[in-house]
């Protein structure tokens, strides 16, 4: 029994150690680092332009002064989207009055999720349209965006609702770098995401 207990304790200590380390250190830059002219460049969300629920064009510049929390969804999604949205709403409730934070939800089903449909969805969710953008546009461009956020999203007739995608929630800093993510389908994972958002915000206070 002792022989088994010792490794378990070691693992627990190690896990505890890791946890403390991530809280004290700066959030990592996620994704591949590229080197241009000898200069290292962190993965950055490329230039984009989509239309939000109020027919306003939202692009990189619209978000450059904000950190934002983002996910991919579609309004008729019968499977994981409602769960993820519930967690997005939890985050929204905490940061809705913080002017440094925006929320962005990209649809992966622009055929059905027109601007009008997204407007209705945002209204039904009861959220501030200037705080939370629901974006639609060219389908291929939207699915390409998912790649840049490391989200798996593709059309699949066998999946519920016709699309397969992961329910990750992503944190992006003011320069378009992906800094953290959590599983939007798991409440505990999102619990651990809040301090990461706070941690990123704190770096802008200095």
């Amino acid at each position, binding site marked *: 029994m002792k022989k088994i207990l010792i490794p378990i304790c070691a693992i627990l200590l190690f896990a505890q150690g890791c946890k403390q380390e991530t809280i004290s250190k700066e959030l990592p830059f996620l994704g591949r680092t590229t080197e241009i002219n000898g200069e290292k460049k962190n993965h950055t969300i490329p230039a984009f332009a989509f239309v939000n629920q109020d027919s306003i064009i939202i692009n990189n510049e619209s978000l450059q002064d904000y950190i934002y929390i983002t996910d991919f969804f579609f309004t008729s999604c019968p499977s994981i989207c409602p769960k993820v*949205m519930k967690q997005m709403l939890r985050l929204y409730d905490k940061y809705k009055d913080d002017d440094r934070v925006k929320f962005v939800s990209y649809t992966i089903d622009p055929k059905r999720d027109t601007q009008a449909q997204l407007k209705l969805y945002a209204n039904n969710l009861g959220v501030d349209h200037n705080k939370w953008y629901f974006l639609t546009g060219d389908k291929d461009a939207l699915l390409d965006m998912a790649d840049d956020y490391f989200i798996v999203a593709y059309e699949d007739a066998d999946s519920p609702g016709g699309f397969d995608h992961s329910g990750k929630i992503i944190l992006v800093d003011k320069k378009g770098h992906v800094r953290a993510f959590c599983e939007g389908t798991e409440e505990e994972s999102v619990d651990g995401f809040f301090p990461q958002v706070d941690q990123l915000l704190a770096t802008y206070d200095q």
Partner: protein
Amino acid sequence: MEDGTGLEKVIPSLVNSDYLKLNQKELPCLIRHGLEMPKDSMLFMPGNKKLTAFEISNIINYINTAWGNDEPVQNINAINAGLNTCL
């Protein structure tokens, strides 16, 4: 979600819901065939045609008694009678 409260107005709450109380007889058809909303609202409830009468019965009786709900249990005969009225 698991607590039956839905998602704001996107997915209406099932807890102490007037709709649930007033539409007990319509529930079997509602679960099997979904619900079309008025044209201007565009949101809808998808149906699930694969569900058997027995499964629908379990769902209804779960919803009727979970989260403090207190609606009468519907037996399989009532469910079948309900399904026979589907349009």
